[in-house]
């Protein structure tokens, strides 16, 4: 079981001071948060991808993740999410494979469609084609990482003739892929078809809904022959704010909740914490709440928390990470290991995937000697 954090990089004014960080401050804070995640013993840091204010998340997450990879030792670097709709799958294949090499395999990624209509035309796409793009682009990406030479034709980009995406994945093993969706059964179906992971953001909606999405994914994972339903790879989001006492946590977090992007100025914090997995209270309350998630979705592989949003100052976020890493996660690790069947897989790591593939293989594709003339590359071996 992996525990970690995910960020959307929102640049939100701190409601208690009215001051919003600059983009520079937010970006540097994000790096500090990632480093802290490793320091307090978390396993995963995942970043969103954004192309518009009020976000200072990277347009290409590999830029940020490569920087963090250079400053960390163990942390698995991931995304939440990589836009499979508006990015060219060729660039995703190349950039994330390169990142895999830089980070020595500490990389996976989560596909998402994005939820902002206006973003699509900025990249020459149309949101009405969103699902179609997610299906077609991922099908191509999947091949680009597994076949050295790809000829391909589709609806949404120019055809490829004898194309080799470089660099080839580290050790000949593609990065693990999660598919994230809040409400589209089609994405659960897509994840199941490929035997990839399914991640539910689990922040904005009741767990009863998350449960339905995960159940569909598990059922279809088994249908497609990747293993038993309870062996499917499931990740959940979550959201917490902690102080030593419950009252202190509620008092401090309330203005951030009341003014938060997405749900601010809506339900009361009490209603929302009851209806969704948001937990505002003591570390023990967080442990109690998140120890029950598997009762809804089954034993799962990855739990990510959103910790740095709604204008919370960096100092507060780092304190939250101390509490998460020191008081919450060690207990959750123990509790969630109890009664976990042996046939339920661990979270996928590069090392485990390489071992499953029969060991590392160098997959470098060498160009023919006269490549300056523009001849198509071929497999050298």
């Amino acid at each position, binding site marked *: 079981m992996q525990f970690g954090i995910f960020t959307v990089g929102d640049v939100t004014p701190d409601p208690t001071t009215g001051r919003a960080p600059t983009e520079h401050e937010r970006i540097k804070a994000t790096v500090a948060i990632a480093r802290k995640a490793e320091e307090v013993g978390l396993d995963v840091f995942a970043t969103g991808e954004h192309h518009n204010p009020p976000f200072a998340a990277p347009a290409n997450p590999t830029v940020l993740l490569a920087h963090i990879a250079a400053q960390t030792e163990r942390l698995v670097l991931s995304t939440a999410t990589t836009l499979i709709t508006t990015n060219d799958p060729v660039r995703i294949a190349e950039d994330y494979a390169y990142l895999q090499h830089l980070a020595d395999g500490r990389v996976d990624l989560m596909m998402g469609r994005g939820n902002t209509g206006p973003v699509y035309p900025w990249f020459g796409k149309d949101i009405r084609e969103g*699902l*179609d793009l997610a*299906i*077609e682009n991922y*099908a191509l990406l999947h091949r680009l990482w597994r076949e050295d030479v790809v000829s391909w034709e*589709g*609806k*949404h980009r120019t055809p490829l003739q004898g194309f080799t995406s470089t660099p080839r994945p580290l050790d000949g093993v593609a990065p693990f892929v999660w598919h994230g969706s809040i409400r589209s*059964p*089609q994405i*659960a*179906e*897509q994840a*199941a*078809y490929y035997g990839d992971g399914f991640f539910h953001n689990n922040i*904005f*909606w*009741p767990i009863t*809904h998350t449960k*339905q*999405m995960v*159940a*569909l994914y598990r059922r*279809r994972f088994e249908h*497609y022959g990747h293993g038993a339903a309870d062996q499917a790879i499931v990740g959940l989001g979550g959201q917490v704010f902690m102080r030593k006492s419950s009252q202190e946590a509620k008092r401090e977090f309330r203005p951030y909740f009341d003014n938060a992007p*997405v*749900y601010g*100025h*809506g*339900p009361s914090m009490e*209603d*929302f914490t009851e*209806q969704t997995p948001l937990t505002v209270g003591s570390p023990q309350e967080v442990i109690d709440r998140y120890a029950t998630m598997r009762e809804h979705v089954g034993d799962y592989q990855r739990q990510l928390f959103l910790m740095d949003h709604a204008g919370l100052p960096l100092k507060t976020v780092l304190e939250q990470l101390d509490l998460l890493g020191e008081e919450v996660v060690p207990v959750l690790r123990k509790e969630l290991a109890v009664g976990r069947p042996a046939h339920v897989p661990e979270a996928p790591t590069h090392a485990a995937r390489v071992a499953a593939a029969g060991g590392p293989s160098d997959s470098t594709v060498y160009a023919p000697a006269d490549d300056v003339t523009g001849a198509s590359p071929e497999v050298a071996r």
Partner: protein
Amino acid sequence: MTARSVVAVSAGLSQPSSTRLLSDRLVAAAIDDLQLGGDSVTVRVVELRDLAHQITDTMLTGFAPAELREALDAVAGADALVAVTPVFSASYSGLFKSFFDVLEAKALAGTPVLLGATAGTERHSLVLDHALRPLFAYLGALVVPTAVFAASSDWGTASSDSLGARIERAAGELANLLRAVPRRAPADPFDDFVPFDQLQP
């Protein structure tokens, strides 16, 4: 004997509410008609006033809290719907519209619906035809020909075209339509998902 479920949505705000009163009269008349035909009827009344905060929250969060969820499911699963709103500023009330805004898009497709509206004066009566009918046409509902408008004067006047007679006529149309249309199966996106081979472009 067929078991029928009739759900009424009433958007009245005051207590007592003439909108609720009209809704109750329409429902009672529909029950009478259905029972005469040998059907058994269960009734559920959804008072939107009680759900007003939850309806707003749903617009902001994207999911319906438990009580509202249950009301939306009842409406989606109804064999017939009675929908009654007060007239506010030349149309249905904002709360009435908001409820149908948070209802899933196809929830009412093929459902027999009886419409009603109330106002202080009969000069607003065309709201039924100019505002409510287009809304329910969009929702794909089967709206019966007679919609019932009750102005303040209707509650105290006896005439050949009295409120009572209009209620009887409209409720009779609803019962006839209900008996004529096949029972709909409620949609479940997790049972009716599209398999992967049909997702590909």
